């Protein structure tokens, strides 16, 4: 057996991921053909992400609108099952998400793992609300007359959600899940500087049972896309959480044109690790009150 020094094997070249938009269950690039460089907390290049245009936003709204009837018309049990399965898939990709979050937010390994665990548990928490929120929110009302009167909660429709800029995964999930659990569909605008975990989330959604169009994810410049969503007359609600301070009021102003339901960030949101209040679910729910006489 000769003892020649073996030449070290050539290092394996990784196959890098392409980060595209997620609209209507498919992964298109931006129709504008643009992308932008995403860097980690040390300014190292991570990847090019698609830079969504107003037309991408328009297409996303259209996809979301198409998906409303089916998603809000599904039984609450079915929505809960579908969303719970998303959590199963997230759990399976724990290490992938941990790596994404580390790179995006500059966290240590254990901190990143804790974020991913909290994300999965947050998703499970919301999945379990699907068949309960109407029990907590609805009521049979004791009106003073021979009428049966009840109030039920219904999804408002299409919601534009500006995800938090800093919390690229936990914060994202904390603003998206409450909208969809009760039957709304969502166009989420990911964190501008930390969009990559959102795109990986869209891969999870694409392989889950969530129908195409229920959740759409756009990456790009928040200040560019947000005004188009805020002024879109076929969007029913908007969450301004990820809006830059100087823009939020303008967006709310535009939203008033069709009286969108507006959700604002709260200081209690904090770093998103605390137990959520119900206001984000309530914000996307209408209340319908029905009267019916009782008599023979």
């Amino acid at each position, binding site marked *: 057996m000769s003892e020649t020094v073996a030449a070290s094997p050539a290092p394996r070249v990784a196959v890098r991921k392409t980060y595209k938009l997620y609209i209507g269950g498919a992964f298109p690039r931006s129709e504008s053909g643009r992308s932008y460089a995403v860097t980690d907390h040390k300014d190292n290049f991570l990847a090019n992400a698609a830079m969504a245009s107003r037309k991408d936003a328009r297409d996303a709204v259209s996809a979301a609108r198409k998906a409303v009837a089916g998603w809000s018309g599904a039984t*609450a049990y079915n929505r809960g099952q579908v969303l719970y399965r998303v959590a199963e898939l997230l759990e399976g990709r724990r290490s992938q998400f941990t790596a994404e979050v580390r790179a995006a937010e500059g966290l240590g390994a254990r901190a990143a793992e804790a974020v991913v665990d909290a994300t999965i548990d947050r998703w499970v*928490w919301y999945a379990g609300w*699907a068949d309960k929120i109407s*029990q*907590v929110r609805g009521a049979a009302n004791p009106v003073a007359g021979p009428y*049966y009167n009840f109030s039920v909660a219904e999804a408002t429709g299409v919601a534009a959600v500006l995800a938090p800029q800093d919390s690229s995964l936990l914060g994202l999930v904390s603003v998206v899940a409450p909208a969809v659990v009760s039957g709304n569909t969502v166009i989420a605008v990911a964190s501008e500087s930390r969009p990559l975990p959102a795109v990986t989330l869209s891969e999870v959604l694409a392989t889950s049972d969530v129908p195409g169009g229920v959740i759409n994810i756009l990456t790009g410049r928040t200040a560019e896309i947000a005004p188009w969503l805020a002024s879109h007359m076929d969007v029913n609600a908007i969450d301004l959480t990820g809006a830059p301070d100087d823009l939020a009021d303008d967006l709310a102003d535009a939203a008033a044109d069709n009286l969108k339901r507006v959700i604002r960030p709260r200081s209690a949101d904090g770093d998103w690790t605390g137990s959520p209040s119900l206001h984000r679910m309530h914000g996307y729910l209408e209340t319908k009150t029905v009267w019916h006489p009782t008599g023979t």
Partner: protein
Amino acid sequence: MGKFEYAPAPESRAVVALRESYGLFIDGDFVPGKDDGVFKTISPATEEVLAEVTEASPADVDRAVSAARRAYEQTWSVMPGRERAKYLFRIARIIQERARELAVLESLDNGKPIRESRDVDIPLAAAHFFYYAGWADKLEHAGFGPDPQPLGVAGQVIPWNFPLLMLAWKIAPALACGNTVVLKPAETTPLTALLFAEICQQADLPPGVVNIITGAGPTGRALVTHPGIDKVAFTGSTEVGKEIARAAGRKKVTLELGGKAANIVFADAPVDQAVEGIVNGIFFNQGHVCCAGSRLLVQESVYDQVLESLRRRLATLRLGDPLDKNTDVGAINSPAQLAKIRELSDSGEAEGAERWSAPCELPVKGFWFPPTVFTGVSPAHRIAREEIFGPVLSVLTFRTPAEAIAKANSTPYGLSAGVWTDKGSRILWMAARLRAGVVWANTFNKFDPTSPFGGYKESGYGREGGRHGLEAYLDV
């Protein structure tokens, strides 16, 4: 012989791996009983012995309660709700994964048609676990205060008519709220509960959180009177329910007992669906249903039409092998139950009612009773007052809505009722006046984990299902 006879379409038994004998499930393991008590469980359709099962003695009950107490104090009540939730989600998932096995086993042990165990019992059982899993980490939003606490150890005794489903109704909310349980399945249907114990193992549920002890009346009595439990949950006969209420002491008790529901059909009912509802109401699960529509109250003006449609429809019911996918009516669960059904039916004839049974061939082996209708029934007849718990319908008439209410409510029971009419306001007027915990309008025997179920009066107290179902397992 009709033109289109259905060939046998048996579901295979091969999916179930029956053991020859089963121990008790205590503290996460199957263990033998402290003494040598055993009993056999048989298939009511063929009378073959399915397995030997351990009879838990008072010493075994002690062991189980201690295990539950330990698990409660050291593990389960201190575990955050979101972690308890994930165990319950796992259990729900495994029930779905092993659905076919559970359905076949349920039909073998209970005698109910495989179509029902496959399409109703097992899916609902999984759904109950899913629903209550989601409450485990949201109790502060349930309307019982900012930090509701569990009660401790729950002793639960369930009946033989929906074995796995009744187990799910008991265990899911108890665990979601942070309690641990000792559950005794009925002595004629222990097998799916024992398979559930395996599922708990597969889910890695911490030992002692769920304990399954098999046995009969004495085991049940030892359990519900045990000083080491904080809560008693019982589904079964009103007679035993009263005994439990007397012996309860300071323990919290919920009872889900018998019924003699009125299924009320008005002249303007959607008649074809009403007939389905009548059939479903009393012949689903061979009438072994506490909320069965066992009294048909038909408006006199449409009596002939409804009865004729009903008889015509009953002639298409298929009675036979529970494992045949086309069977509609399965076996009666036990010789004791069959004797009771026969005795009450004979009394019906003796008291002057007219008896009509659907034409069907009863198999030679096993326990069977044909779907039967009594007409000319008066409210004083035994078959109008006593729960038969079998496929026997008593038909009475009424003229006005108020009369229907009076007749429907004239019973010590109050579990459920059905109303069939095209008029919405009448549905709501009737629902407001029926003294029953569940009112089905233009439908019957519908169950859902989100929908509270339970009775008025001697049908028991407490509700299972929905947000209301949490109350039974919280210290509120």
